[in-house]
């Protein structure tokens, strides 16, 4: 204890008094609760920006793994995945839809996608759809043959009728929506997880005509540039702790001005890029490096067979 007091005294003598004073949070005159709400707005925006970079980084990482879908030619993969989604949308039976969910998970395992990450991306969409779909099982929303009565009233109530019940048609609709959405997400996620984003963009570009092809492939690169700027805006504001106003009006003003700044930065940058392109001799047509020549080998045939099998069985 005596040793500790001695050390403290030594410390006190070496540093000026103002530096040793206990510092609280920056005093802004804004109640803590309001600061929290204001911080929430920044946090959510920052979270969206960071998750974009994080997801893109993770997609690159899983796309580099030595898995099944990683070996499939990106254009062939996109066509088969789109065909699977259309086939799923044409299914009218629950087992038919669930086959696509099973196929999605089977391909995820074959492609060495970490299942915890796969589920993490899958769950928000599935949970949201579950919350949206479940009320559809009630007879008041989708009338039909009652299979389970939850409560019966003595007289008819507005919108509800004389009872709240689960209808067979409603339950099917709710389950069908959940199965269809889950199947679709499991399949769509495979494209992102097993194809490097630039290759995925090039694969989609193959189906886009002329001028728009150049625009599409360029835009993905600039998204990273602008997301980086957005992160800088937010971190700069957070670094100035006192900048939390806690007043929705001022916070909205900040959001508006930063969004406008991003647009202005884009338009300024566009001039420089245009001059750079013209300096390199770009004329009426801009050539973009595409994917290597299309091939349809063993892995493409296997993927097609698996997809066709799921649709036909």
């Amino acid at each position, binding site marked *: 204890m005596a040793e500790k007091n001695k050390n403290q005294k030594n410390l006190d003598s070496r540093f000026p008094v103002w530096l040793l004073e206990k510092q609280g949070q920056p005093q802004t005159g804004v109640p803590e609760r309001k600061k929290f709400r204001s911080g929430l707005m920044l946090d959510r925006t920052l979270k969206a920006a960071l998750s974009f970079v994080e997801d893109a980084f993770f997609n690159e990482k899983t796309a580099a793994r030595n898995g099944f879908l990683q070996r499939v030619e990106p254009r062939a993969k996109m066509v088969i995945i789109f065909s699977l989604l259309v086939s799923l949308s044409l299914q009218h039976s629950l087992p038919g839809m669930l086959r696509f969910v099973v196929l999605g998970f089977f391909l995820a395992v074959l492609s060495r996608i970490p299942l915890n990450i796969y589920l993490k991306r899958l769950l928000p*969409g599935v949970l949201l759809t579950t919350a949206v779909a479940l009320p559809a099982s009630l007879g008041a929303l989708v009338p039909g043959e009652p299979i389970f009565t939850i409560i019966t009233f003595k007289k008819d109530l507005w919108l509800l009728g004389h009872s709240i019940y689960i209808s067979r048609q409603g339950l099917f609709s709710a389950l069908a929506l959940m199965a269809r959405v889950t199947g*679709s*997400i499991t399949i769509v996620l495979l494209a992102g997880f097993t194809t490097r984003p630039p290759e995925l963009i090039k694969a989609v570009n193959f189906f886009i005509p002329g001028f728009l092809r150049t625009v*599409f492939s*360029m*835009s993905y690169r600039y998204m990273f540039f602008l997301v980086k700027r957005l992160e800088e805006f937010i971190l700069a504001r957070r670094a100035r702790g006192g900048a939390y106003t806690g007043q929705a009006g001022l916070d909205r003003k900040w959001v*508006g001005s930063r*969004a406008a700044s991003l647009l202005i930065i884009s338009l300024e940058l566009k001039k420089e*890029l245009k001059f750079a392109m013209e300096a390199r001799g770009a004329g009426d047509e801009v050539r973009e490096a595409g994917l290597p020549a299309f091939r349809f080998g063993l892995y493409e045939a296997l993927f097609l067979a698996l997809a066709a099998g799921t649709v036909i069985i």
Partner: protein
Amino acid sequence: MHIPDGYLGPETYGSFWAATLALWYLAGRKLKKTLKATDAPLLALGAAASFVVMMFNVPIVGGTTGHATGATLLAVVLGPWAAFICMSIALAVQALLFGDGGITTYGANCFNMAFAGVFAGWAAYRLLAGSCASASKKRLLFAAGSGAYFGINVAAFLTAIELGIQPILERGADGKPLYNPFPLKITIPAIMAGHLTLFGFAEAAFTVLSIAYIIKSHPELICGTIAGNRAGEKQQ
């Protein structure tokens, strides 16, 4: 407002894919008249900006937040056809790489948000702003805010209609809905209530504040579309 895969039946999403493909063709032809290949970065950066703008959480009330679409903002700065293309690309990246919005429903999402939302907002803005060169700053801001409110509500209304007609269009043999099961009497109030009272005003405030900042710092960007901006560059 992004409709995921599975909510719309093939007849509906197929029709919207066809409509959106036709609109892209039209947009390509319109833009080809004003843009050269070396102007591709303008649209690419516009698309990137549109994508990033959708990440912004706008404070609404009681500590809640909603995200902006920036449809009218883009239409005012870039012109409606360029904004349509930019938003379409942003929606494509969201759907393909991050599973936000569906692939089969992509045509419908583009039609609602990138086409109807942008053009409705732009039309309201132009109607209320009148001659841009002679309009006062207050009038321009009022027009932009009203356009944003109108645009996002038109997009939301179309979304509600498309979802609400599914039980009529796509039913099984015993009358069970095969896709979105909720009828129009539920989808319209459920979607419009939030947009008419909260998200519409948040979008309007976001657009007004962004346009106010642009008028203050880069006034040459307002009152022009891409052609206007190019004229501005020549003057410099």
